[in-house]
């Protein structure tokens, strides 16, 4: 009984840490964007965590963990509306004395909202709030859990001879958000003044200290994101996971900062911060099967990817104010592939399975997010008017300035 309690306590602490990441996302997004849109960004983030959690309790959790039976193809299943523990849900037999059904629901619920949060940063400063809310409801409510069921829910990717492996969500959470982010950014268009005469212009963030606070909060949250994905308080695995996570974060940051300095002759703090996040996303698929040296390599490559991805996205005239696509899509895919290249599961067959998984998620995420945003664009429109964009979303969509003088 004591092990059950200890495990469950750790899982609940991790649940709280992952919840706390929403503050981190909020801070990072407002820090890297302009003051006149601060309330709008915070509103979107608050909406995501509240409505997302409610949707997960309504149907999401049971879509994601539908208890596929042996005959099912493992694509789509549903265990019923609402949240109610099964017969053994509150006993040690539910999850090998790892946690109760309630903890399982809430821990997973905290992950679900992250998929939409990733998008909110990429579309900041010009998206209309209503279509964003509708997108969130559909994407977090339906797409994320169905996609998640393919692996964590025991679906076809888990059932493969060499099962797809995503320890804490490089693919299931980060790339799911990342694919939607790039689709949204493509359909939405860039901010006014971002690309002038084919040249990219800088639109500096208004509060770098708060962006920094955001990244450190996210790093702290990752102690729970990865630490809790062990699904118990097993001292050996959890302590290793925290080490690989932190080493990858640190290496990602240093590499990104170094390459940026080499490339631009500038010590850019925002790239340093993005590099840390890239390292965190990169290790997330395999934090429990990597050695510290593997983590250094994964983090280092993530940091390099960050710099080049930010530059590439800019070059193809996509406007991503916070680097969400570079961090979550590019490093999410990289982290997933890394499981086949480094660490305990490395091998050709694993690499192939990882690729199958990446492509499967790409298909469902790109198509669903494209349909959602395209329909919204053609019906109610997804972009604010020129006047609103220039004067600021805070005043027009929320009737108040964030920093009222």
């Amino acid at each position: 009984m004591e092990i059950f309690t200890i495990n469950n306590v750790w899982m609940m602490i991790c649940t709280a840490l992952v919840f706390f990441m929403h503050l981190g996302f909020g801070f990072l997004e407002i820090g890297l964007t302009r003051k006149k849109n601060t309330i709008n960004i915070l509103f979107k983030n608050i909406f995501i965590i509240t409505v997302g959690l409610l949707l997960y309790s309504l149907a999401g959790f049971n879509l994601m963990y539908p208890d596929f039976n042996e005959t099912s193809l493992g694509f789509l299943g549903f265990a019923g509306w609402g949240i109610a523990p099964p017969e053994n849900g509150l006993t040690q037999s539910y999850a090998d004395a790892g946690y109760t059904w309630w903890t399982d629901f809430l821990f997973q619920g905290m992950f679900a909202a992250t998929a939409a949060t990733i998008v909110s940063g990429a579309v900041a400063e010009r998206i209309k709030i209503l279509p964003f809310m509708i997108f969130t409801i559909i994407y977090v409510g339906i797409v994320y859990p169905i996609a998640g069921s393919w692996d964590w829910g025991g679906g076809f990717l888990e059932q493969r001879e060499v099962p797809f492996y995503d320890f804490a969500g490089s693919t299931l959470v980060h790339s799911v958000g990342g694919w939607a982010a790039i689709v949204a950014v493509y359909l939405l268009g860039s901010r006014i003044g971002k690309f002038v005469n084919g040249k990219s212009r800088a639109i500096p963030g208004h509060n770098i200290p708060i962006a920094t606070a955001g990244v450190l909060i996210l790093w702290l949250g990752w102690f729970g994101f990865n630490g809790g994905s062990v699904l118990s308080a097993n001292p050996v695995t959890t302590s290793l996971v925290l080490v690989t996570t932190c080493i990858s974060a640190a290496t990602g940051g240093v590499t990104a900062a170094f390459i940026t300095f080499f490339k631009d002759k500038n010590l850019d703090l925002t790239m340093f911060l993005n590099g840390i996040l890239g390292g965190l996303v990169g290790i997330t698929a395999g934090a429990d099967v990597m050695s510290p040296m593997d983590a250094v390599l994964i983090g280092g490559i993530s940091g390099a990817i960050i710099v080049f991805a930010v530059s590439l996205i800019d070059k193809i005239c996509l406007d991503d104010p916070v680097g969400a696509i570079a961090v979550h899509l590019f490093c999410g895919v990289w982290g997933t592939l890394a499981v086949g290249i480094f660490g305990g599961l490395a091998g050709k067959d694993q690499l192939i399975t990882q690729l199958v998984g990446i492509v499967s998620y790409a298909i469902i995420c790109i198509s669903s997010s494209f349909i959602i945003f395209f329909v919204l664009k053609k019906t109610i429109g997804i972009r604010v008017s020129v006047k609103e964009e220039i004067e600021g979303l805070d005043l027009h969509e929320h009737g108040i300035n964030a920093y009222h003088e």
Partner: protein
Amino acid sequence: MKKIEAIIRKSKFQEVKTALHDVGVNFFSYWDVTGLGNEQEGHVYRGISYSTSSIQRRYLSIVVNDNFEKITISTIIKSGATGDIGDGKIFVSDINQSYRIRTGEKGGETLN
């Protein structure tokens, strides 16, 4: 009476203020302004080079009697210059009348 308006570098403000005090000019208003000019500053943000076309400066508005005009201007020029592009400008205009609000007096004595 003359109004002397000086747009100076923010970094030179303390020096200018002290120098003016040393020659007996103790009363003026000042505020921060943004302007356009010739000064180029190289900035880089996330791999994109850009120069700020808007420049931060401090604007001083000093009203003095005619006999103080020359010394005020030369003091500002001496203490406010660095030799680099962007040191600023001084504009001089005539003032028709001056009043002290507390007492209602008018004339040149109100400027002492």
